[in-house]
């Protein structure tokens, strides 16, 4: 057993190139054992490539990656017995039933026939899949499929569970279920590394977050630290008439005392706001100036805003995303 101080994941200068695209371009990460760690970034940022390297599915071109002290290339087998990966693309067999999928994996992990069935049954019961257990997985809903996919990673509870965008495409109810599973796992001393495009998700679950863009880590810290970089809140205003945006920008900038960011939507303006009362005051100023407001929101900064703050440019899926999809 590795000691408590060994990080779950430690990478240095990790790089992977597909053709001419550097999907991962010198990633340094340290994931403390026993925590939830979020990798936040837009499509094509290099998230999937990074975790595929950690799950020994890809070999890095440069740099090193260690999982609980074991090198992913030279000690791949040791890494595989400590990590479970649930990828974005259902890693269960649609032709087989949910139960058959789990029994198959349990057998592969060394469970004898009967204990394999018992373990599969327990997991199906716990994750509310018992009723659908004997139907082919291709008949499952998206949420059920994802739950089975995560369940398939838990036959032997891994020391590190890697989840690639675990809630993308799920309805809110299914998303909450996935979050509950993650919380329960961490309470049970599993380390969870997850990627996400949603700041809210990272904020809800992660103890630490790395923001990644164009294959590089551009910020790292606790959610509180990250949000402090960005400003604790964001205000968004949508106008019924885009022609009034320039005037609205002046009024709001004066009232809030911070610069406004014109969004890509020509009728929308946003700004970092720390104080809700000032935001309310600014809206009143808009009304006094005779500028109508279609709707407004005050909330957490979106990933767009985090990006804008960290990089000075909004996140744009670039050519890397195609490469990454191909690779995955």
């Amino acid at each position: 057993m590795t000691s408590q101080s060994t990080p779950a994941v430690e990478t240095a200068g990790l790089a992977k190139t597909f053709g001419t695209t550097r999907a991962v371009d010198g990633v340094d990460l340290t994931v403390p054992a026993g925590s939830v760690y979020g990798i936040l970034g837009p499509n094509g940022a290099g998230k999937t490539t990074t975790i595929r390297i950690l799950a020994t599915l890809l070999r890095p071109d440069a740099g090193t990656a260690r999982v609980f002290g074991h090198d992913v290339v030279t000690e791949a087998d040791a890494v595989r017995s400590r990590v479970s990966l649930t990828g974005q693309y259902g890693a269960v067999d649609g032709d087989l039933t949910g139960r058959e999928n789990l029994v198959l994996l349990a057998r592969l992990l060394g469970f004898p026939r009967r204990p394999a069935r018992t373990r599969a049954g327990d997991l199906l019961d716990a994750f509310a899949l018992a009723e659908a257990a004997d139907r082919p997985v291709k008949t499952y809903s998206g949420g059920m499929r994802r739950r089975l996919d995560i369940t398939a990673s838990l036959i032997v509870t891994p020391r590190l569970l890697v989840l690639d965008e675990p809630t993308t495409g799920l309805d809110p109810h299914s998303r909450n279920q996935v979050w509950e599973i993650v919380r329960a796992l961490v309470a049970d001393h599993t380390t969870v590394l997850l990627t996400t495009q949603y700041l809210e998700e990272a904020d809800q679950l992660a103890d630490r977050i790395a923001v990644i863009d164009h294959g590089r880590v551009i910020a790292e810290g606790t959610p509180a630290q990250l949000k402090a970089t960005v400003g604790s809140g964001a205000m968004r205003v949508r106008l019924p008439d885009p022609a009034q945006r320039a005037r609205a920008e002046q009024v709001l900038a004066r009232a809030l005392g911070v610069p406004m960011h014109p969004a890509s939507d020509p009728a929308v303006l946003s700004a970092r706001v720390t104080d809700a009362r000032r935001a309310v005051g600014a809206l009143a100023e808009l009304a006094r100036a005779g500028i109508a407001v279609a709707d407004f929101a005050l909330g957490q900064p979106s990933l767009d805003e985090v990006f804008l703050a960290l990089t000075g440019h909004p996140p744009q899926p670039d050519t890397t995303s195609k490469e990454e999809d191909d690779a995955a």
Partner: protein
Amino acid sequence: MTITPTTPTVDQAWRTALAGRTRPPRPSALSTSLTFAWRALLKLKHVPEQLIDVIGLPVIFTLGFTYLFGGALAGSPRAYLNFLLPGTLVMTVVLVTTFSGVTLNTGITTGVFDRFRSLPIWRPAPIVGALLGDVGRYLLASALVIALGLVLGYRPDGGVVGVLAAVALLLGFAFALSWVWTTLGLVLRTPSAVNNLSLLVLFPLTLASNIFVDPETMPGWLQGFIDVNLVTHVVTAARGLMAGTATAAQVGWVLVASALLTAVFAPLTMRLYRDKP
């Protein structure tokens, strides 16, 4: 509708589910491969359409060739059958092997193989197991060809032992040949490309062989090709075993060829499998 926990509590069922920290001892390479063979059979159970080729080809080939060529080539279908049947058997099984490459190519693009590749198991097991499952398909195809032949009047002089030996030799060769298709399955992008290319390779190999007629009537250059054609040697050995006249050299040749195919293409498959991005 099932009831799922929506409050942030960890209930007892979850505790049980998440308490699976004890890892059983790692299973052997053989046991892992057999588990994957079981998976292949499960997939056959759920998607029986996969058996269309192993049921259809034996029927079409055995009936078709016997009655199409029998009268012209040997005077009567029944007389021809004794010459043809071992060839039909080889042709059927050899054509059915292309399925292995197509299956691997289909599977590897679905994400399921990501899971297999990230498990702490004997690395070749998913492919070896799938090929062992395919041997079950070859066995079914062989049984159909032979059963149909017996109904039509085929009487092997080699007896039960000769026929079983021929089938065993053929299954060994088919297993070895499958590694060629798994290699293609990992190199090519789509299942249909794998299918088309493997058939493109197999048609000349099966047609320009001694399956249908004795090559003595053919031009010299073609005889030259037929002499080095692997399929010819497999047919000669199978025919010999089923007629009870096989020589050790005939059988040995096929065993050596099978070993060589495996020695070259199995490591190549595994290398491609390992480096698949």
